[in-house]
Each structure stands twice: as structure tokens, then as C-alpha cells.
């Protein structure tokens, strides 16, 4: 080319960043996220695993605890019981959820908003409530068991009572089905919605009959959604604590075993052992679910045409009948719960009274507990939303630092595999230890001060529900134009300014959804907090468990009703806020 001697060009570009540059700041924040997640997810889990390898007095025993566990038939039967419950629940909840979701997304039935709202209702209540309500329906003195207190036999002369043998697997399975039905329905309605109409048109034009279309087009199209629903239902019912506690009767499951060991007998080593046993099937299901998710994402075609709803009158009528039936069952269920809290002395004095709502004579903390729960739920919502949305932003929108981002992503998904009980258990061990043994050196624990505080409860909730919130945030962030950050950088506007001025407002619907999800779940959750609450921090859901323990079933129902009422109220508030928001953003939201 020209004859000029060019100055030597460096082989490796020497990227000089000012010390406090944005990029450094972002990388630092990302590192912070990874460290924080490591602290609250990995370390406690590690401690839990470690604890299962030691015995009560601190001597290392290797797998002896596990051997003792499996050698004890009573204990290892719980594993089989948990599996059986989970499999039955999945077999029931997934088809029901599928049919319901199909009705909501693929047919032209009226009242979809109502059906959807009602189907989500079970999520507002602690799982204990399902057990309690079932007692009032199917227990010895339940409405169904007694044929409405013999009403049927007295007036119609027939014995309409039906004893289903509630206490035991039957009760647990019914409760878990009610609990997991909304989740299955949610996953499947998303899957059913994102299909391409053109596949159906092609199938129809080739002369395929409706059943054939169903099996060759519909089902394969949602197969990953189905898999995901299966895994979620399995994990949830396998690890749930509330329902077995109330209606389990003699039927032992892993979740209640952990409880007995830790709180009942203060046998932490065995509790940790059972916790680990609980963890493994959950982890397996989790990994399989992740695999399915990745495949599902690949299926989504950008230019897919949405399917118009089915026009066949018969199909519509059938689905309407089905959805109405489910809705009716749910209403009966909720109604019974309410009734249980209002009846004076069930079943002998059926007059209504508010006396069960006076919690003064009861254990569990009464309205103070409810207040604590609201505070905890509120804090969890605020801090959890900030944490998940902020870290999703850092993971999704930071260029480079891919190792850090992938680690952060992985750690953010890890909580999905952790049952609430395992988190609670791990946190007792981790945060209660006054000191850490690191390579033989005894360091005072920097986190010990959290033990017994509201902070730890909030933290456990945030971690417990972290992944779903993180995913919601990530999905919303992915919809944004990829170049916002580049534009901002090119104009020398710091990324946090753009985050606040653009990213958050545009993603506000998702942010509200996350906050609401956290609030409702934090109100109702019992599995993690049952280990972590302290004497001066009673919680409503734990109070329900305590009162049921003591046999005060009606006040337990009343407290559950209070929890549900608060959650519904908050939901309505969020709904109103979201509606107002969408009206304001009509102008600039893409149509």
C-alpha cells in the first residue's frame, strides 16, 4: 500500500477503562449477585449436606445416617409414600389442568376471566387449609361423609353419606391436586397459547379428523409444556408439608418426617439426612424440566399466527360444562372453608359466630401473627422484586462477562430445585451457627445476627420463590430492544439512569406481577418459615399449623380465611394498579 511505516499495532487491544467505569460497576454488581446467591443458596445447602454426614454429637459418620434411614422400615416407607402421593397427584392435576387450560385458550366459552381467576384461588391459601377444609367435607363429621349432616337421609330417606377414608393418602392426594391444579393450568395455558395456527390449517386441509389433529398436532405442540407441568406438579406434591400435616393421619411422608426429626426430637442430623433424601428426586425432576424448557423455547416460531378459538357449539358446551364443574367444586371448597370458620360448634351447633376469629385464647400469636405475616409478605415483595428484577437485568443486559452471567443464571434457577423445607432447614443450620469452621479455623459467623429476625424470614421467602420471579423478569427484559443499553452508553448516560427511566417503566407490568406473586406466596407459605420463625415473630401460616396441632381446627380455618382475605385484597389492589398503569401506557405501548 503506501510507504509510510505505521506505528506498531498491538496484538492484543489494550482496553483502558477508567477505574470507576460503568462496565466495571456492572461487572462488580454481577459479581455481587453471584456472591450473594452463593451465600444464600449454595453455602446453606452445603451445610445441610455436610450435616447429614455427621451425627448428633458432631462426629463424622459418613453415610451412616443414610444407612440408618433406609434400614428403618418406618422411615424409608415415607419415601415410597411421598412418591406415591406425588405420582397420583400429577396423574390427576395435569389432565385436569390441561382440560381447563384448553377450555380457556382454545374455545369460545364465556366467562373466561372468571374461570381463570377462580382457578388461581387455591394459590392464596396455605396448603394447610386444603387439609382443614377436607376434614370439614370428608372427615368423620364432614358435609359429604354425613350426607350433609344426615339431611339427605332424613328428607329423602336415602343414605347419601360417603366416607372416602380421608385421613391418609386419599386426603393428601386430594389436597395436593387442588394445590397443583392452578400451577399446571397456568403452564399449560401458556403452552397452548403459543402455537401456530398454520399447522392446524395445514392439518385440516389434509383432511385430518379432530381426534387425529389433537394427537398429531395439539399434543406434540405442547409436549414441553406438558412435561414442565408434570415436573412442577411432581415436585410440589412430593415436597409439600401442610396437607400431610393436617390430613396425613398415619401416612408418613418425607416432609413431615423432617419436621418430626428436627422440631419433635431435635435430631438435626437425621433431619438433615431426610432433607437430603427429599432433595434428590426433586433435583432430578428439576434438571429434566430444565431440559424440556430449553427445547420448548426453540419451538417458538417468531411469526406464528395465533389460533382462533374453536367454533363448534358442542365442543364449547362441553368445555363450558367442565369448567363450570371445576369452578363449582372450587367454590364449594372455598365456601366450606369459610363456613368452617364461622360455625360455632361443628357439627353440633351450626349457628354462625365470629368467635373463632378471636384468637386471644389460641396459640400461634393471633392477629399479631397476621400482622407479622403481612409485614413479612410486604418486605418480601419489595426486596424480592428489587433483587430478582435487578439481577435479571444484570444477567440479561450486560455484555461480556459471560462466565459470571452464566453462573448467576444457574444460581438463580437453583432455588427451583429446593423445597421450602430444605431451605428452612438449611437456614437453621447455617444462620444459627455462631461460628464457621473454615479449614480448621474458627471464624465468627458474619450472618448469625440474622437468626430469629424478620430479615431471615424475608430472605428465605425471597430465595424460595426466586426462580419464578427471575424467569418472569428475564422474559420481560427479553422483549425489550437489545440495543437500549448501547444507545445509553453511546450517549454517555449511565446504565442505571436508563434502567430507571426506561427499563423499569416499560417492564412495570412484569414488576407488579412479580411483587404480587411474592406477596401472595409469602403470606401462604409454611414449609420454610416453620423452622425459622421465633417466639417474638409469630406468623399467620405457622399459627394455622399450631392451632391445628392443638386441635383448634375452626380457629385454624379462621386464620386461613384471614390469610386468603388479605391476599385477595392485595391482589385486587395490584389489579387496580395494573389497570391504571395500562390505561396510562396505552399511548406508548405497542398495539
Amino acid at each position, binding site marked *: *500500500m503506501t510507504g509510510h511505516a505505521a506505528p506498531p499495532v498491538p496484538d492484543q487491544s489494550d482496553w483502558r477503562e477508567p477505574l470507576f467505569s460503568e462496565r466495571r460497576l456492572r461487572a462488580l454488581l454481577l459479581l455481587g449477585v453471584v456472591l450473594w446467591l452463593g451465600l444464600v443458596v449454595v453455602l446453606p445447602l452445603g451445610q445441610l449436606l455436610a450435616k447429614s454426614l455427621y451425627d448428633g454429637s458432631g462426629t463424622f459418620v459418613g453415610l451412616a445416617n443414610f444407612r440408618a434411614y433406609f434400614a428403618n422400615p418406618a422411615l424409608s416407607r415415607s419415601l415410597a409414600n411421598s412418591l406415591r402421593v406425588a405420582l397420583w397427584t400429577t396423574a390427576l392435576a395435569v389432565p385436569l389442568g390441561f382440560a381447563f387450560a384448553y377450555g380457556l385458550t382454545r374455545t369460545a366459552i364465556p366467562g373466561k376471566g372468571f374461570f381463570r381467576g377462580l382457578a388461581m384461588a387455591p394459590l392464596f391459601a396455605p396448603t394447610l387449609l386444603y387439609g382443614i377444609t377436607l376434614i370439614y367435607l370428608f372427615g368423620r363429621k364432614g358435609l359429604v361423609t354425613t350426607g350433609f349432616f344426615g339431611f339427605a337421609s332424613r328428607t329423602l330417606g336415602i343414605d347419601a353419606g360417603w366416607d372416602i377414608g380421608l385421613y391418609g393418602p386419599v386426603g393428601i392426594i386430594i389436597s395436593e391436586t387442588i394445590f397443583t391444579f392452578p400451577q399446571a393450568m397456568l403452564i399449560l395455558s401458556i403452552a397452548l397459547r403459543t402455537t401456530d395456527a398454520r399447522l392446524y390449517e395445514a392439518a385440516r386441509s389434509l383432511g385430518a379428523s379432530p381426534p387425529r389433529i389433537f394427537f398429531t398436532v395439539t399434543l406434540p405442540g405442547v409436549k414441553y409444556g406438558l412435561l414442565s407441568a408434570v415436573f412442577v406438579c411432581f415436585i410440589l406434591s412430593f415436597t409439600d408439608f401442610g396437607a400431610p400435616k393436617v390430613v396425613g393421619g398415619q401416612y408418613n411422608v418425607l416432609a413431615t418426617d423432617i419436621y418430626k426429626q428436627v422440631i419433635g426430637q431435635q435430631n438435626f442430623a437425621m433431619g438433615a439426612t431426610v432433607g437430603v433424601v427429599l432433595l434428590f428426586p426433586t433435583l432430578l425432576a428439576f434438571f429434566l424440566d430444565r431440559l424440556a424448557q430449553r427445547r420448548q423455547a426453540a419451538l417458538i416460531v417468531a411469526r406464528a399466527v395465533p389460533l382462533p378459538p374453536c367454533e363448534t357449539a358442542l365442543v364449547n358446551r362441553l368445555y363450558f360444562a367442565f369448567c363450570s364443574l371445576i369452578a363449582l367444586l372450587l367454590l364449594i371448597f372455598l365456601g366450606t372453608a369459610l363456613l368452617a370458620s364461622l360455625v360455632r360448634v361443628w357439627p353440633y351447633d351450626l349457628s354462625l359466630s365470629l368467635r373463632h376469629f378471636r384468637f386471644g385464647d389460641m396459640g400461634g400469636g393471633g392477629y399479631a401473627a397476621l400482622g407479622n405475616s403481612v409485614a413479612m409478605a410486604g418486605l418480601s415483595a419489595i426486596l424480592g422484586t428489587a433483587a430478582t428484577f435487578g439481577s435479571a437485568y444484570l444477567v440479561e443486559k450486560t455484555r461480556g462477562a459471560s462466565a459470571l452471567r452464566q453462573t448467576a443464571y444457574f444460581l438463580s434457577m437453583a432455588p427451583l430445585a429446593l423445597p421450602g423445607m430444605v431451605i428452612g432447614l438449611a437456614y437453621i443450620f447455617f444462620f444459627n451457627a455462631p461460628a464457621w469452621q473454615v479449614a480448621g479455623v474458627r471464624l465468627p459467623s458474619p450472618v448469625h445476627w440474622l437468626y430469629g429476625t424478620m430479615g431471615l424470614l424475608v430472605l428465605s421467602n425471597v430465595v424460595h420463590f426466586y426462580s419464578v420471579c427471575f424467569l418472569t423478569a428475564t422474559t420481560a427484559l427479553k422483549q425489550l430492544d437489545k440495543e437500549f443499553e448501547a444507545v445509553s452508553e453511546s450517549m454517555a448516560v449511565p446504565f442505571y439512569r436508563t434502567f430507571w427511566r426506561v427499563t423499569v417503566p416499560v417492564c412495570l407490568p412484569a414488576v407488579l406481577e412479580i411483587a404480587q406473586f411474592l406477596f401472595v406466596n409469602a403470606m401462604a407459605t409454611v414449609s420454610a418459615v416453620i423452622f425459622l420463625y421465633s417466639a417474638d415473630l409469630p406468623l399467620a401460616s405457622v399459627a394455622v399449623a399450631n392451632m391445628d396441632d392443638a386441635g383448634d381446627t375452626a380457629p385454624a380455618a379462621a386464620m386461613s380465611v384471614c390469610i386468603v382475605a388479605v391476599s385477595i385484597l392485595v391482589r385486587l389492589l395490584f389489579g387496580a394498579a395494573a389497570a391504571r398503569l395500562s390505561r396510562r401506557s396505552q399511548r406508548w405501548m405497542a398495539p
Partner: protein
Amino acid sequence: MDQTPGADGSYLAAQNVVKRYGRFTALNDVGFTAARGEFVSVLGPSGCGKTTLLRIVAGLERQDAGRVVISGRDVSALPVSRRNVGIVFQSYALFPNLTAADNVAYGLRSGPQAGGNIARRVNELLSLVGLTGLQGKYPAQLSGGQQQRVALARAMALSPDILLLDEPLSALDAKVRARLRGEIKALQTRLGVTAIMVTHDQEEALTMADRILVMDHGRVVQHGTPRAIYDQPATPFVAAFIGSMNFLAGAQKRGQGVYQLGRRTLAVWREPQAIETGQTATLGIRPEDVVLGHEELPADERLPARVSGLEFRGATTRVTLALADPRPETAIEADLPAARARELGLETGRLLQILLPPDRVSAYQAA
């Protein structure tokens, strides 16, 4: 490209830029220069590395080797926020929850006294792109063309040294595109800002750019003015990518300017690539350069052909011709102005003589 920064008067220079993604080399020793106020288009098919090059010039990506110099300043190590460049992205990346005015004003510093100044500047920029009166509209309320212009105004707001455009017109439909081409170019000329535009549309590059950089598989294949590139494509790739080109393979070089094609000897005066006597070459000629119907010329200068297809294209007619040489039924295409086609009274099957003018035929090394 080893030009000393600033020594040749270039305002922007990229030198020996290398970028790898794992095993894949996106840019392989790429360099170019742009003078102040010049409009350079980086043209190439998808995957050739043009966007990567743009992002490296911008500072959005970090090169593995090489240098970027702007206005005599070595900015290779600086992040985009320190390079004073304005970027218009393919998707515009307008902030949907901000009005057009707020979008444009986004980078302008705000302070107690700056309020009025900012508003004035925003109005100035919006009128520059012809969007006066649309300050309060949100991007969703604007048409594609209007959004594009807001993006442009926003990129210009901070008076950047360089304006970088990443396929700015690809999201628009043809009529709007044609109009905006002129507007962008006019704006750029008026403001005198150095602009680098990445595109895969050769028509855009030809009409808008002062100079074009043609890229393929991470390398610069040719650079020059649109005319030079069109008239004298350096390789078959450039020739085929810009405009249309007929390729006749299997010609053998007999001597300087003389090629054997089948049983015919052809005079070829353009050799963009060095070819040895006896080597096989591919001859290329553009359709509009093929001359039809010169029966009066000597036999060795003309080729017999049969009209095998006619495509009426309005202002031009494309004629598909079947040659007897080098192999039966070698097809080439010719573009005729409609008037000429009428004159010749062409119809399918008609036999005629065609001429390939030696100064319009190029010989390339056989692939």
C-alpha cells in the same frame, strides 16, 4: 491499510482489525479510512462482518487486534461512551415510554438552567429531520419512517464526530426507503458529519455513499467510489454482488488481451486480477454492456445467439440469449432500453449476432 493516523488527512481510520468469536474469525485484518464529512458505506452479504466492524468502530465490541483512530485520536481502548459517536440501530431502539422529544433529548444534560436550551436543541434537531410538531408523540404513534428520523435526530443530538448507521432502512418498505435514502444523504451533507453506513442493499450503497467498502467473509474485498466499484469490480464476488453480471467460465488466455472461449477468440481488455497465459479464466460482462444486432461487424468479433427468453421490465427489457459457444446453450443475459428492444423487434427464437465489447469484458481467475 497502513495509513498513519491523521497523516493522510483521514478523519476516521480502522487498521488491521481482527475479531474472533471462538474459532470463527469475523474480521480478518480489516482496515479502511474515511475523510471528514465523507459518507462511507460498508456493503456485503449477511455474515460478512460488516456489523461487527461497525460495532468495533463504535466501541460496542472490543477488537482482538487492530486500531481505531478518530480525528487523530487513538480511541481503540476507549469504550463507546468516550468516543463521541452517534449510532442509529436497525431496530431504532427508541425508548417506547418516552416521547419523540424526550428520546432526542435523552443524552442532553439536564440542569436548572439547561431546560430551555434542551428544548431549543430538540426542536432544532427535529426540524432538521423534518419532524417539527411531533415532539409529543410516542414512537408507537409514529410511522416507520418517522421513527427512523427520530432515531437519527437522537443520534445527532450530542454533535458526534462520527455517525454510525446499522442497516437503518432495512425495516422499511420500498417507497419509504427510496425517499429516506435521499433525506439521510441530504442531512449528512448538510451537517457535514462523517457517516459510516452498513447495508446489504447495493442500491442503497450506490446511491448514498461517497465511497463503498465491499466485504466478504471478514475481509475487505474492494473499496472505492460507487462508480469505480460498479465499473471495475475487482473480483467475481464484487461483480455479482453489485449489479448483475454474466459469467462465462472456461475461457483460456491465449495472450495479452486475447482469450479463447470454446471455438471463439475474444478480445478482453480488462484484467482486474493477474492471469498467466494458458490459465483458465472466467469472463464477465454486465447485461447492459452486451450489444445486440451488429450484423455488419466482422465475424470474429461477433457471436451468434438465439433469443431464448424475453422479460419485459418496463423501462428495460431483459433478453436471455443462448450462445452456441463455448458449449451449446451457454446462456447470457442482456438488458436493453425499451426503445432499443422495440427497434430490434425481438421475439423468442430469433437468431441474431451479439457483440461483447472488449473494454466492457473483464477476465477473472477461475474460481
